[in-house]
């Protein structure tokens, strides 16, 4: 599995802002890059996987941790 090449700290942001920031970040990446997103709004557990599905990006990691949620997204 590829490690993240870029990170996005979306902690403290409420949905849909973590998704918007993810989308804006990924637009600047190239195919194959992996973005790590860390967020605290529980809405991301649904929204980030859904956003990845509609745009065809691969969700490599979706993890609920003690204080936040972590995702790895491979740009496709």
């Amino acid at each position, binding site marked *: 599995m590829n490690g993240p090449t870029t990170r996005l700290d979306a902690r*403290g942001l*409420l*949905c*849909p802002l973590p998704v918007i920031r993810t*989308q804006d970040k990924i637009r600047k990446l190239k195919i194959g890059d992996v973005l790590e997103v860390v967020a605290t709004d529980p809405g991301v557990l*649904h*929204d980030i996987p*859904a956003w990845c599905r*509609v745009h065809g990006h691969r969700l490599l990691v979706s993890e609920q941790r003690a204080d936040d949620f972590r995702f790895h997204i491979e740009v496709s």
Partner: protein
Amino acid sequence: MRNESANVPKRAAALISGGLDSMLAAKVVLDQGVDVEGVNFFTGFCVEGHTHAIRKKDRSRQKRNNALWVAEQLGIKLHIVDVIDEYKDIVLNPKHGYGANLNPCLDCKIFMVNKALTEDVLDRGFDFVITGEVIGQRPKSQRADTMPVIARESGADDRLLRPLCALNLPPTLPERKGWVDRDKLFGFHGRDRKPQMALAESFGFSDYAQPAGGCCFLTDERYAGKLADLWEARGERDYDFDDIMLLKVGRHIRPAPHYKLIVGREEGENNFLSGYRRRFVHLDTVSHAGPLTLIDGEPTDADLVLAARIAARYSQGRTAAAVSVNVHHPSGDSTELQVEPMLPTDLEPAWHIGG
């Protein structure tokens, strides 16, 4: 905007709110072989998302983003666009005025259609824009006389297609060019939702969002009352993102023009308000469990005592003889007050902002 070469597959941007009408409009055009991508604008006043995440009582509810869900059902891409800053001018200076509350619906629609035309979210350009508008559906923005205003002032002109009520309007460019078949569009009008529900059923859509109060806080009387109060108290019509977020949370109580209290109503709101502790004077009850209360404004020492009595009234010590309340200042200083909780009858109804 793309050129009109007949050999290039036609491409449309659909405004997707997450509700049924925009979903149906996009589906009707998608089924005609047009390449449709969705656009959803985040203004900061959207009902979805934030409040569900803040309030603990709402946390058991499904937390899906309905616009994303619609896009997934339709199999289209969705671009969610942050327009918080740009949207301020629409809220503060609506050329066409407000609806029943502080909802600038007509200017909002013009803004969004224009933004879908000009926003660089659709990398390959597009040929026309789709909305789920229905003539007569909304008293301010969706009327026969406002439809041409939106088309004209957005700059879309006849590249704006409303598939659900197209048969009540002159043919648009996509219809005249044969990019979409007008015979497969609809002539819905009025507030009756049955035609949309029947069309949804024909598409096999059974699980769709139908927000009773609409999708925008500006249409909400209580929210609009709090925003108007904010402007009046500050002596200017302006806001930032934190202002409009805080208006969604807690009880807003203004005992005097120069300060107001924002009192958390439950644990989720207290947690949210705690994120603002370093920017506001804030109160917490020490002797009894109670809310976190932010003070917005310039309270005097006497005001802080009154504020502490109000905070105590919403604590579990509301019937106690005295409640200890800590007053914290952004400087880091804090003071403990012993106060008698305010009786509900002493809490002036007019202090409750937004009713």
